[in-house]
């Protein structure tokens, strides 16, 4: 339920020294509802996907690992734990919306990008030093919610979708051969469903010494539902059906997540399938001091 609009100005007495309170991170537990599930599917014997999420920090991370034996799990596990622990650690003392010294970028964006690179190096080094891990890698999609926005970083073909009102759409664009063919006009989006080249990613975490994650920031609206998923979902279930499921079951996110996994498995479940759902229950603007407001007012 949307809260009734409150028209009064935020009372100054709530934050007695507003301008000094900028260093305080907002706990997003009240604003976000997050659920996540991961499942090996119907064909694979083990699950190479890894997920983690934390409503307090507004963080959701999903990785789909690849490599022989259990190397895929190792790669996705490293990626998820590096992002989660490093970002949490940094946000103990700093806020995601603060500008990083010497750049125009916000800390939240920089944290996502730098830690995907850090995870990349950890996986790459492990793969170099341990023969059983040679060639392992992982896709990743990570969202950090702060200040009424979401920053999303991704590498490979794990996706973030958004349901806003009636509209369900893909927000991230896969780093895959197929997406590049769609972009360059070789093949239409409709025909891409028939392609046999679905599982070829053009970027992955841990394969080379460096990786370039794609990071974007989007405004959120109360009522939005964000879906992070591995290709085990969107290869098995049509976008239209995923959107309809979220639309119908938005009152019960846990059930929505399990229904999505069930549909992927009912359609064959040829891959591991993971979903994280984030529902925006309320606004979560960062507290701003009078001085900061004034500065940004002059800047605009």
């Amino acid at each position, binding site marked *: 339920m949307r809260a009734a609009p409150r028209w009064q100005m935020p009372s100054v007495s709530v934050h007695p020294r507003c301008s000094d309170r900028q260093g305080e991170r907002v706990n997003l537990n009240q604003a976000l509802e997050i659920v996540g599930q991961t499942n090996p599917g*119907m*064909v*694979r014997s083990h699950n190479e996907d890894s997920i983690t999420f934390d409503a307090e920090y507004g963080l959701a991370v999903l990785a*789909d690992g*690849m490599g022989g034996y259990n190397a895929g799990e190792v790669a996705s596990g490293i990626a998820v734990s590096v992002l989660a622990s490093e970002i949490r650690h940094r946000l103990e003392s700093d806020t995601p919306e603060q500008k990083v010294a010497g750049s125009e970028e916000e800390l939240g964006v920089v944290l996502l990008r730098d830690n995907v690179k850090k995870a990349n190096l950890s996986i790459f080094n492990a793969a170099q030093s341990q023969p059983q891990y040679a060639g392992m*890698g992982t*896709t990743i999609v990570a969202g950090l919610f702060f200040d009424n926005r979401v920053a999303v970083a991704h590498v*490979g*073909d794990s996706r973030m979708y958004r349901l806003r009102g009636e509209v369900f759409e893909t927000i991230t664009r896969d780093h895959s*051969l197929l997406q*590049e*063919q769609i*972009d*360059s*006009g*070789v*093949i*239409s989006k*409709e*025909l891409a*469903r*028939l*392609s*046999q*080249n*679905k*599982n*070829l*990613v*053009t*970027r*992955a975490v841990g*394969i*080379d010494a*460096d*990786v*370039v994650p794609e990071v974007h920031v989007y405004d959120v609206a109360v009522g939005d539902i964000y879906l992070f998923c591995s*290709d085990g979902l969107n*290869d*098995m*279930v*049509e976008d239209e*059906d995923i959107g*309809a*499921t979220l639309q*119908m*079951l938005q*009152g*019960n996110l846990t*059930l929505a997540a399990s*229904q999505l996994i*069930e*549909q992927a498995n*009912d*359609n*064959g*479940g*040829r*891959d591991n399938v993971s979903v994280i759902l984030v529902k925006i229950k309320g606004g979560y603007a960062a507290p701003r001091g009078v001085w900061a407001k004034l500065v940004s007012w002059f800047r605009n």
Partner: protein
Amino acid sequence: MPAKLILSMDGSVIKEYPLTKERTTIGRKPHNDITIDNLAVSSEHAAVITILNDSFFEDLNSTNGSMVNGAPTQKHFLQNNDVIEIGKYKLKYLNDQPTQTSAADFEKTMVLRAPIKPSAASVVPVAESGAKFESTTQYNATAPKPASAVAPAAAPTPVAVIQILNGPNLGKELELSKNLTTLGKPGVQVAVLARRPHGYFITHVEGGSFPLVNGSSIGEQPHQLNDHDVIELAGIKMEFYLKN
């Protein structure tokens, strides 16, 4: 196993051509990969471009044109068992890699190694073929419908119907034509009916109390419905039955 073209005329196979090259040319002149020495065939008649597991047919503005699956075609995204016709000759496209048995291995995500350049053009991994493709427009397929892309794992579940047994909508029927159907009043009590390969299941979505099936509460877990079960939800009774 690479995809292949099987050349035949009047039902007898002439030769098989594996599509191992990025560009396989078809024409009358001997320099073509597939040479068809017949005056109805242009010297450079057509080409098949193969990118990993996908192949595209393109007529090279030939004099007499090409047909795919019986229709005149300029460009076409080839699907398994498509038949290309050039004059009296037929070329059947076979690409049966992703069979269900080998699916586990085939579906594994792989990485295309490409040099990492921060803001380089996005067509990096297939730069050579990509360049050739940039001038061409989108390919049209007349063949299989995209709807069949996700194959159901089992035979279709029989169609089920919900009939309202009391209240203002008494007698009304609702056919469960979608995979998911929600019942009830949002904010009061909602349940979802899921159509699955092995039957229909009802699950509680929201509300203070759980739906009743044949008078007993189903709790939080999915509950499989049997023919003629009676569901009670927010004071409304309804019967679930399977259509023949």
